[in-house]
Structure formats: C-alpha cells, structure tokens
C-alpha cells in the first residue's frame, strides 16, 4: 500500500507533537514504542505498530542522550520503521535498519540546532539585563517553533514524498541484503547496551551484570521483570549495608577525634 496525502499530513502532525516532546523530554512519547504505535494507528495497522514499537524500542534501549552523545533520532526512526514496513510489506526488523538513515538525518539537524541556537544567547542576555520578562518569554518560543516545524517537515518528506524511491530501493534489494538488515536489527541493541556500559560499568559492578546475564541465559521467562526484581533485592541489601557502614564510619571517626589521634581515615573500598 502507499501512504496517502492525508496519512502523510497526520504523520507530520504526530511528528511535531512527538518531536516537541523529544526536545523537552516531558512525557517521553518520543520513544520508539509510543511513536511506532501511534504511527501504526495512523496507517490503520495498530498490530504492526505495536510489534515494530517493541523491536525498535529494544534497538534503541541504550541509545540515550545521557552521557554526552546525541543518538539517532527516535521519532524519525519510529515513524519510518512503521511506514517502510507497512508500505513495502517488509519485516519490521528489516525496516529498522532502513529507517536509520532518516533517524540520522534528524540527529544531524538537531546537532545543528544545538550549535546554532547559541546565536540566540546574546538576545536572551540583553532581555535579562533589561529585566524584560515579556520579551524573554516570547523569545523562547522561537527555537521551540523551529524545532517543532522541522520535525513535521522532515517526517512528511520522508514518509510521503520519498515513498516512491524507497519502494524501488526496497523491492530491488537482493534477498541476502534484506536478510542482513534483519540480522542487524537483532544485533543493534548491543550498541545501546555497550554505550550504557561505557557510562555505568565499574569493576565492582561487573558481578551484577554477570548475574543478570546468567539468569536470563539459563532461566526461560518472557520478560526481564524477574531479573529486575533480583537486581532490586541486591540493591536493597547494598543500601542497608552502605548505611550501616556509614554509621560505623562516623562512629570510628568520633572515637578517633576524641582520642585525639591525627591522620586521615581511609576507607577500603
């Protein structure tokens, strides 16, 4: 099926709403699981949207803006995964790979905004120095409008205007290439997890990583909730132990101070 003009416009409107949320990070409806579901609803295939949402969310699980890098944009990736899967009948896992160029395009547009919006700062400074609250508030709407509109335009062009070339590309792809994209969709979560590990992994936490990994590998269950619960148990144990250690430490410190012995106290963690 092809995307109609009406659907294209609805997608653009949805992209603006989700894009604004992506910029402000208020409701988190910019995550693929929500974006895909709503896009599926617009295209009249909720089931496909939900499935694609689950797969894309996993692929983006660790690709977070925290830690200093702006990842490929989740709004465009979510929209295009569903659009490509629906319009060309490709498997959602394959469609994730094909939607990535669009997600990266939006990522670069946002990076451009992050740099160029510095130009507004002198204006903000001026209004602040004048105590001009009204103008200050108004000026904030300019970047917001630019961001929102560009999400709408990029999504409309990607989903509606580019569907012809996209269809030719997808149908002319040899089987090994489509299958390759599907495999890549399955491996992609690894990138996000590696990025999470880069920020979080310290030697003392490695046992917990291994614990979760071994549990999931050996015990069959349908989602990660049991692992999360076991993790919570260890977190609680550690919480109470740390508070106990802290109390002990202050006690020792108190004793040391009262006996008037010099030298700092070194903890052995």
């Amino acid at each position, binding site marked *: 099926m092809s995307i109609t003009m009406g659907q294209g416009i609805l997608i653009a409107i949805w992209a603006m709403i989700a894009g604004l949320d992506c910029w*402000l990070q*208020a*409701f988190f409806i910019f995550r693929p*699981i*929500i974006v895909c*579901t709503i896009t599926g609803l617009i295209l009249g295939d909720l089931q496909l949207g*939900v*499935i694609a*949402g*689950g797969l894309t969310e*996993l692929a983006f*699980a660790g690709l*977070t803006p*925290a*830690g200093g*890098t702006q990842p490929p944009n989740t709004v465009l990736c979510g929209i295009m995964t569903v659009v490509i899967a629906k319009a060309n009948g490709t498997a959602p896992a394959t469609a994730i*790979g094909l939607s990535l160029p669009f997600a990266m395009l939006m990522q670069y547009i946002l990076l451009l*905004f*992050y*740099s160029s919006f510095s130009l*507004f*700062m002198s204006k903000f*400074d001026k209004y*602040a*120095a*004048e*105590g001009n*609250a009204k103008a*200050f508030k108004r000026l904030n709407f300019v*970047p917001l409008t630019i961001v929102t509109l560009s999400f709408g335009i990029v999504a409309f062009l990607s989903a509606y205007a580019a569907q012809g070339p996209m269809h030719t590309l997808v149908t002319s792809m040899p089987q090994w*290439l489509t299958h*390759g*994209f599907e495999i*890549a969709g*399955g*491996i*992609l*979560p690894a*990138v996000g*997890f590696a990025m999470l590990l880069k920020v*979080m992994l310290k030697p003392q*936490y490695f046992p*917990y990583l291994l614990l*979760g*990994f071994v*549990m*999931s*590998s050996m015990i069959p269950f*349908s*989602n*990660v*909730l049991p*692992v*999360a619960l076991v*993790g919570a148990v260890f*977190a*609680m144990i*550690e919480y109470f132990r*740390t508070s106990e250690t*802290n109390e002990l430490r202050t006690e020792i410190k108190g004793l040391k101070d009262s006996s008037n012995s010099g030298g700092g106290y070194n903890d052995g963690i």
Partner: protein
Amino acid sequence: MASNNTVEKKNTGKRKSLFTNHEISMLGIRSNLVQASFSYERMHAPGWTWAQLPYWEKIYKGDKDGLKRVMTDNMEFINSSPPLYPILMGLLLTMEEDHVDPTTIKGLKNALFGPMAGIGDAIFWFTIMPIVGGISASIAKNGNVFGPILFFLVYLFLFWSRIPLAHLGYNLGTRAIDVIEDNSKVISHVASILGLTVIGGLIASYVTMKLTITIGAGGNSAISLQKDLFDKIFPNILPFAFVFFLYWLLKKNINPLWLIVITFVLAIGMSFIGWM
C-alpha cells in the same frame, strides 16, 4: 555585591510563603521547559530562567533591579538532569524569596546541578529506562498493545512526580542540600547495581546473534556450531562477546556512529556468506 532590594529580610521563625500550593505545583510542571532553548553554549540556562520567571516577577514586584539581577544570574550555564530540576528550583526559590545573598544562591546552584545530573542520569536513563523500556518492549514485541500503554503510564507517573519534587525542594529549603549530599552517593551506587543487573539480562534476552553454519561433511555427521556447541557450553556467548567488543571500541573513544556501521557491515557480511 550588596543587593539593593527594598524588601525587608524575613527573620520570623515561621516562614510566611509568598506562593500558594498551586503555584508550587505549577513550578513542577513548568520545570519541563528547561530544554526549550537548548544550545551547547549555555545548555539549559534560557529555559531554566523562563520556567522560573513568573515566580521572580512576583518576588521582585516593583523592584526592577532585583528582577534584572536574578535574570542575569540565572542566564549562566546550567546543565543537570531534567526530572530533578523541580527540587533545585524549589530549593532556590525559597532562598530567593528570603532574599539570601545572591552570591550564595549562585554558588549553591553551581555546586548542586552537577551532582544532581549524576544522580538523575543514574536513576532515569540508566535504571528506569532499561527496565521499563525492556519490559514494555518485550510485551509489545508479541503484538500486545499493553506494552506501549504500560510504558506511557509509567512515564506519565514520572511526569506528575515533578510536582511533589517541587514541593519537596520548596518545603525543605536549604535542608534539601543535606538530603541531596547525604544520599547522592548511595542512590547512584544502588541504582547502578539495579541497572547493571537488568542490562545483563537485556543483553542475554534481546541481542540476537545465532550462527546457522554447520561443520562437517553434511548429512547426519554435520555439527551445528550454534546448537551443538555454543548453546551447550555458554548460551548467548556471541551477544555477550559482541557487546564487550563494542564497549572496548567505545573505551578507545570511537564514535558511537561507527558502532552502528560496524554492526550493519557485520550483519550484511554474515548474511552474504550465509553464516547467520
């Protein structure tokens, strides 16, 4: 620098609040505006100022210089964890309301936003996101609409949690500093434990790498490398090894974009030679 405010300092034992309960709740909602004019130069500064502007207008009513001063002070660089901003805003608002020395307020703001970014990222991006995303995605993957609904509800709850956080910051006032300092270390420690356990589980469950290649002459003597070897000795060894390969690349300061490229080249290559 002496502040030339005309309002008398309040030294009464019990604080009389200038703001209603509703206004403090709105501060929590308005804290969503911090990223409105995000740029690399000042990060959250313009949005941070915008969110609190109505409150300062009320405090510095008829004191234009005070308003100028507070706006200029807050246009300085700030970058913290967005969901925790309500605490910081509430805390600084009490101080602003009590006309504490501006240098103290500024110093405190600069001292707190960094550590708070650390706690916030540990809680919201590295613990809640993998858990909620992982669980709801595993439900959605099978076409169950409850997956996205669950995700939406959890984040809706987190959105509303900004309101109690704003009240917490405002009511605790400077006492909030002790709470933040005492707990920041233990919270990020405990969040790391929970987060990493879940990430370990997610690696095993959701990174799919299975070899289809068989060794041997074919027929009955053929051995499937995946089913007969890896799955029996160490299931999911490939995903685990690949994640750590990527981790190693990241530690070498390779751009994350290259990791995506490597993943695609590997997958398409494996598909081409028929190993996966």
